């Protein structure tokens, strides 16, 4: 069966520090991968999606970047965090043969 792992669960970082959040999917090949952010107040905002290794599309201009170095690995990064980067970050995957979306457990990021 397929599983998605996302870590860390919580992270407290100072303003100006770098960020690296990692997500991996097991039990499937060539998935579509996504990073979402959920600010307080519930809305889910799509940040990045990837249809293959090295293929990244960005939905909103921001201080963040994403990379997909391996088929089932998706990384969210920042060189210098801003206060406004605080939020709940969710990785998600979707099998190629379906548009059904599955989420990781999320990372609560607090930038202080």
């Amino acid at each position, binding site marked *: 069966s397929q599983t998605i792992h996302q870590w860390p669960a919580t992270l407290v970082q100072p303003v100006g520090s770098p960020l690296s959040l990692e997500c991996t999917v097991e039990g499937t090949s060539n998935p579509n991968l996504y990073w979402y952010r*959920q600010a307080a107040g*519930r809305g*889910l905002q799509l940040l990045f999606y990837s249809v293959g290794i090295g293929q990244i599309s960005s939905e909103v201009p921001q201080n963040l970047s994403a990379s997909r170095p391996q088929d089932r690995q998706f990384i969210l990064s920042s060189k210098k965090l801003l206060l406004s980067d605080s939020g709940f970050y969710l990785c998600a995957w979707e099998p190629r043969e379906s548009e*059904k*979306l599955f*989420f990781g457990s999320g990372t609560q990021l607090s930038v202080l």
Partner: protein
Amino acid sequence: GIQVEQSPPDLILQEGANSTLRCNFSDSVNNLQWFHQNPWGQLINLFYIPSGTKQNGRLSATTVATERYSLLYISSSQTTDSGVYFCAVPSYGAGSYQLTFGKGTKLSVIP
């Protein structure tokens, strides 16, 4: 882009009660998904339902694509049903695809 509206925004239920959550969308879609986010933040895919009705235990969902809405029914609610329920529909661009989420219905089930 496509608009997704969910109602009600908040709902408080006594344990054992039934409820209906609604999702309206502004354009034709070929699928719709319902998610439950528990109080710890985990988002679970409840239903992938392009049309018709599906049931999973005490939950069922109906999508009427021609009328651009979907309903999520929760019967005999339990405290573990608490959380936020989202619906999401796809939108397609030039070679791209993404899900658009509604703002959710926050359900609180009290003992």
